[in-house]
């Protein structure tokens, strides 16, 4: 601590001296330029230009020597200053220390403290991990077959690097298959596509796809506005109807369910999802298969099971 204070004091004195010597250097350089501009006053006896030239050159040499001397002094003070090593690690953030408005915000100080804290945390984490690894703790008596099997079960394959043409062809094929769904491609931006799918005479679904991965689903009534006033598609406003909001939640659950199943081909989750959507075509006509009624709390049967999509109320589902 005392060392750093002494170091800081030395550095400050060095800087002060360097500033004064820089000022001195500046004045000698100004003298040189003044001499070059104004020249030398001619002597009273006009002996010839030779003497004036000599005098001029002499003065010029003197000034340049003074500049050289002052420059060497400045260089000496600069080299004697010790750079603070820790500031370099912060990178561009270290330039904040040059900010003159230190009274207003303590951003630089906070940044240095955060960095030191972070470094300490890394050290402790490394020490802790080395200690923990050296003492393996077995909590359960079982051979851990189930756990190992869980670990061994591979994650669903991620299909990437699909060509745009392949995606277009797949979507066209899917559009042809189910009879109760009508497709409309609203927007394409690179890999992202926004589809408008109308299910029978029941609702419209806005489906956002990245290649063939489903990202977002929004279910709205047939007479609801899908676009903003400026013509862009509205992807965020919820439906004004409660049954459509419930179906949106179920649709997002279905997207997650079908996306995490093992699929040999990339279009299978989307295909299953569209088949599940198709089961809603008689939303207002079919009563609940469990209780036999149309309404439950003012809502029609909005739940469809993911394996066996049959009309069911939210409260009736097994």
């Amino acid at each position, binding site marked *: 601590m005392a060392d750093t204070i002494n170091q800081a004091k030395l550095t400050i004195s060095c800087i002060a001296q360097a500033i004064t010597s820089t000022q001195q250097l500046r004045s000698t350089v100004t003298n040189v330029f003044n001499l070059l501009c104004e020249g030398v006053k001619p002597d009273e006896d006009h002996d010839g230009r030779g003497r004036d030239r000599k005098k001029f050159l002499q003065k010029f040499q003197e000034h340049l020597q003074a500049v050289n001397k002052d420059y060497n002094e400045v260089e000496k003070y600069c080299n004697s200053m010790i750079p603070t090593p820790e500031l370099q690690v912060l990178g561009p953030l270290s330039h904040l220390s040059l900010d003159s408005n230190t009274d207003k915000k303590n951003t630089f100080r906070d940044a240095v403290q955060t960095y030191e804290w972070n470094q300490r945390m890394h050290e402790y984490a490394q020490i802790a991990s080395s200690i923990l690894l050296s003492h393996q703790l077995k909590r359960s008596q079982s051979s851990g077959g189930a756990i190992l099997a869980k670990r061994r079960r591979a994650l669903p394959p991620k299909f990437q690097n699909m060509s745009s043409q392949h995606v277009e062809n797949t979507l066209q094929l899917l559009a042809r298959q189910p009879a109760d769904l009508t497709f409309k491609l609203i927007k394409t931006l690179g890999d992202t596509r926004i589809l408008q799918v109308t299910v029978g005479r029941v609702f419209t679904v806005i489906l956002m796809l990245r290649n063939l991965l489903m990202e977002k689903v929004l279910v709205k009534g047939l007479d609801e506005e899908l676009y903003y006033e400026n013509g862009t598609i509205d992807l965020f406003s919820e439906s004004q*109807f409660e049954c459509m909001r419930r179906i949106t939640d179920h649709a997002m659950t279905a997207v997650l369910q079908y996306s995490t199943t093992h699929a040999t081909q990339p279009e299978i989750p989307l295909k299953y999802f569209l088949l599940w959507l198709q089961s809603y075509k008689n939303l*207002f006509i079919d009563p609940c298969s469990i209780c036999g009624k*149309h309404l439950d709390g*003012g*809502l029609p049967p909005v739940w469809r099971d993911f394996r066996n999509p049959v009309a069911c109320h939210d409260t009736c589902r097994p």
Partner: protein
Amino acid sequence: MGVAYVSPWKVPAGQNVQQNIEELHNSIEQLGAIKTGLFTVECESYHAVNVANSKTLHLIHSTEYPASRFACFEDGPSIVSDVMLPSFLSKLRSVWQPRKGGRIESKGHRYELGDFVLKTGIISMGPSTKGISLEVEYTPCVYPCDCWGIITELLKGFVGENMVTNMPTLILEKSKEIYTPDITMQQYVELFSNIRKSNLVR
């Protein structure tokens, strides 16, 4: 905007309209509906001047569609226009004149139950009360043939099992097409006409 069914509410003999409508409000509130305001449906009738047995033109204004005016004949043809229609008709005084005593209105409360909108109104001609109207609208669906079961099931919930379940002719004719608000207004016109006729009989 969805599918709406307008029906008269039969006041049992011996009870007055005010009492009956209070009972109706209670049964609706018991279902869980929330009161969301008031509504009015006014109907003004016009007849052609110097034409014998001319058809009556009904001009309807509903607070549910404040920027629109509906004009329809009893037997079908109707138009939807903006708020300037009454002043336009007044300029055509030489052709269409308002019928005396032809103003009838239904005024009452508006309830919301999930996606349903229920309206119970007292029908009055001038100072005298003539009956009660009940309108049930199911907003998410736009095809009447699809949601008729849902509407009747709700009505049975507070009317009882004696509820008439046949679709009215007005809706039946266009049950496979997209429902529009002027069909609701035509239902009101039919209801008001029946009340006028029953009034004349008395």
